[in-house]
């Protein structure tokens, strides 16, 4: 696979960043044993999502290492039914084979990072699914530490997020889909304590040509609101300073639509509208993560979104049963 041509306009002078953002080194694409290999709740994780709303599909790959030795991963392909994904493979104690995070395999999930901080290639073979995705970042990875609310120590020591364009092919149950579109990835290392979270909205959207993208995480923690993320447009990534998002929830608390207005340090505004295409309600520990691929717009330009809303499972049960 080759990188798609990116359409990125020249940044205007008025939109130049007012400060230098964090820069990652190529080694940050690899493991960070010094902070993620030992200690309670020590964790390092990689995530790649490729929503394909025109096909009512969502492809989601996630892997993690806990305590420095125990690896896990899951791969799912979701369709329109939130209750049951079209494909799910989950391994909690997966054998790791390979060279650091540069090129490795976890129980059939082959993950390569051929261009540091830029590209990822992910393949999966088995259990009826053949999947190949290439992800090309459309900007440098963004650190949550560049937001005013920072990267809380219970989320991670460091975490980066990156919008990208995706190109791939999947074959499942005799159906083959070739796709190009927009996706997202993240990489975090350090400590993860899920018990702080009361609710969150993890929102990612990009136009397929890579001209504009958005990442925003709104977390409800200790009864307070934390905001992280960036606006990427006109070739400039700038930290979000203010976010307001509202979800249209159905009677099962599934977000069928999301609207948001975001402002960055440069004073720019970006508007998001997103509508349900495919997803899965994923239970993790005491939480329920509604992972949804969405057809979206960013400032009225067609875009693709993956929006995850996280809930305490008992809270959802109390309102839906």
């Amino acid at each position, binding site marked *: 696979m080759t990188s798609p041509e990116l359409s990125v306009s020249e940044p205007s002078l008025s939109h130049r960043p007012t400060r230098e953002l964090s820069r990652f080194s190529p080694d940050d694409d690899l493991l960070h044993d010094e902070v993620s290999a030992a200690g309670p709740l020590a964790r390092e994780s990689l995530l790649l999502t490729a929503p394909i709303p025109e096909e009512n599909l969502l492809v989601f790959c996630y892997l993690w290492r806990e305590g420095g030795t125990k690896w896990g991963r899951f791969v799912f392909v979701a369709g329109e039914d939130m209750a049951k994904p079209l494909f799910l493979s989950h391994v909690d104690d997966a054998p790791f084979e390979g060279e650091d995070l540069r090129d490795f395999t976890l129980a059939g999930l082959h993950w390569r990072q051929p261009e540091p901080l830029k590209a990822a290639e992910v393949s999966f073979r088995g259990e009826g699914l053949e999947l190949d995705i290439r992800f090309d970042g459309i900007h440098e990875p963004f650190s949550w530490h560049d937001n005013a609310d920072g990267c809380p120590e219970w989320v991670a020591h460091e975490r980066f997020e990156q919008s990208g364009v995706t190109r791939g092919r999947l074959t499942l149950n005799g159906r083959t889909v070739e796709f190009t579109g927009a996706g997202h990835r993240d990489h975090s290392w350090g400590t993860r304590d899920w018990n702080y979270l009361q609710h969150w909205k993890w929102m990612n959207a990009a136009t397929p040509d890579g001209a504009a993208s958005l990442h925003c995480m709104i977390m409800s923690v*200790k*009864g*307070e609101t934390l905001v992280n993320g960036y606006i990427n447009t006109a070739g400039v990534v700038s930290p979000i300073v203010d976010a307001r998002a509202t*979800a249209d*929830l159905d009677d099962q608390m599934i977000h069928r639509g999301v609207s948001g207005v975001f402002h960055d340090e440069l004073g720019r505004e970006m508007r998001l509208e997103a509508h349900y295409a495919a997803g899965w309600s994923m239970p993790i520990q005491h939480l329920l993560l509604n992972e949804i691929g969405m057809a979206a717009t960013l400032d009225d330009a067609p875009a693709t979104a993956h929006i995850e809303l996280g809930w*305490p499972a008992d809270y959802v049960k*109390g*309102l839906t049963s």
Partner: protein
Amino acid sequence: MTLTPKDDLRHHLRPGPHSRESLFYDLVLPDEGLLVFTYTWVNADEQAGHLFAVVGDDNEKLAFSATDGVGSGGRDFDDWRVPGDTGEVWVKHTDLLRGASYGASAEGAGFTAELTVEFTGTHEAFDYARNEDGCPDFIADNRFEQGSRSRGTLTLNGREIHFDTTGHRDHSWGTRDWDAIQDWKWISAQVDDDLQLNVMVLHARGETTYHGYVVADGELQPVVHAKTRATYDANWWQKSLHMTILDAAGRRTEVAGDRYALLNFQAGERITLNEAAFRGTINGREARMHFENGWDRSYSDAQIRRLGGSLLAGS
């Protein structure tokens, strides 16, 4: 919706499990190290209750009376009285939306308490329907809040404590669906009769809304946003607060404080309430305040376990 004097009296309640009308009268006495908490309610079936507590820090109940399921006897709030086995709460709304008198008593093992207060509103009653985020239907049809000059006497175990200080009250009616609420923070704070505020930050169904008002420089303005940073002890009881409030006139109000008294109690099966009295400041001027936190108990219990506190510390 504009408040009318009759909103100081009882409202028709639709039948239902969460239907209720309640009055809360707040008295914060930092010089005595006391929080004096007076609360009464009634539901659509005319069943009334009260909670009266005089507390010190760490949930130390110096006097306490609580009851529920008491027939209202058809009384209205112009002459309200809820007796129980351990004490009584009474309220007289005689100068509607402006002033009231109220009181309470409690008697138990090793304590007696009697409270009498003249409550004089120091500004117009403010209802949450006036806020940009409105009054969410899962907390009430409407709810109003009002700061006061509160004068009276608390007699605690025979010792008379006379006070002439600021206070606060609220009154809500409609549905209180505790199951929809994930958490909330409610604060009333006063420097004097001219600088007072109330803020409620409400978190439900994944959305955060802002309610309340600031009275400053002779002007009452609705709250539009509040940024809160609080700290907690091992029992997940709030210890300190920093809050920056933005009101509809664009004014920023800074609130800071530290706890000196706390009452914990449970509301329904899901919610735990921590009622704290704070010493602090508003815009750098010395203030007294009440800072309430309501939590989904599964969340607060998880924090207590993480911090090594006691799950049995509450009532």
